């Protein structure tokens, strides 16, 4: 068996269409390793660190898989010492992968990024250096109060958003900077995409203080 180090892209069922002439990160040829009724898409590991371009190339292979059946996307950087190790990984987790494939079959992931329309209120001056200890503590306390208030505003808005999407599996990621409430990932069945679009519209109509940026369809990164 070849001893080349490999990177992995996604897992599918063996019966799903296989990569044909598909190129992955740094143009390496993508091939399928079949094991236990599953298929692991890999290419040779060219080494080196992550770049945005490589991240796009990784996702592009997964998107190619998506055109025929929903795959389980692997995180970028999933590497194997050699083909034997890759096959062993699939064997050891075959039941888990089968269960996940069943759960996401026929589905796609949509991403909704929620932004406040108005810019965040100007930050009061950060606690001054050189002021008294008490001044510092008071300023710091005020700053923490503002941060907590912002978290509560974001949390309340996310709850209002969620109410528009009952019974849709969702994963939230809170925003990490001012103005970004957070991102929500939804797992949506293909047949439900038209009605999902209406739910997005109703969310947009209610949450007028926000912009909703929709991305996707993604492979179900957030649900595997």
């Amino acid at each position, binding site marked *: 068996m070849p001893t080349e180090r490999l990177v992995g892209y996604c897992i599918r069922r063996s019966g799903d269409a296989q990569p044909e002439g598909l190129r992955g990160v740094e143009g390496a040829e993508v091939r399928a390793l079949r094991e236990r009724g599953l298929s692991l898409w890999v290419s040779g590991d060219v080494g080196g660190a992550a770049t945005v371009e490589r991240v796009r190339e990784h996702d*592009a292979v997964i998107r190619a898989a*998506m055109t025929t059946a929903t795959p389980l996307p692997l*995180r970028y*950087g999933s590497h194997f010492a050699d083909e034997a190790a890759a096959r062993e990984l699939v064997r050891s987790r075959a039941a888990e992968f089968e269960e996940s494939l069943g759960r996401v079959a026929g589905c796609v992931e949509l991403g909704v*990024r929620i932004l406040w329309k108005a810019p965040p209120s100007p930050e009061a001056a950060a606690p001054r250096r050189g002021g008294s200890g008490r001044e510092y503590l008071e300023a710091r306390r005020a700053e923490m109060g503002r941060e907590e208030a912002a978290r509560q505003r974001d949390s309340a808005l996310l709850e209002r958003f969620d109410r528009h999407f009952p019974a849709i599996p969702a994963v939230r990621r809170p925003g*990490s900077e001012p103005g970004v409430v957070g991102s929500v990932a939804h797992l949506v069945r293909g*047949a439900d*995409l038209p009605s999902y679009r209406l739910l997005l519209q109703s969310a947009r109509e209610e949450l007028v203080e926000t912009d909703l940026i929709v991305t996707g369809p993604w492979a179900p990164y957030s649900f595997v």
Partner: protein
Amino acid sequence: MPPELPDLPDLPGLATADDFELWSGAAGQEPHSLVELLNRVLDRGVVITGEVTISVAGVELVYLGLNAVLTSISSARQHLGYP
């Protein structure tokens, strides 16, 4: 110029990409799309190994899980060539 966004696949039995207002097209949203891509590909998905090599300022680092978002919107904007 911001880079071309990847084509959305036509998924069998699903609405076509044209039916959806995806990638929204409005100016200034590409940095958000980039962050959405990075958050998924680097911080979600099936985990095989516990480590990913990431380069920060030219130094390769191995990290065991991603807590903070790898890039803020301002970094994403810079990368995409926005002012």
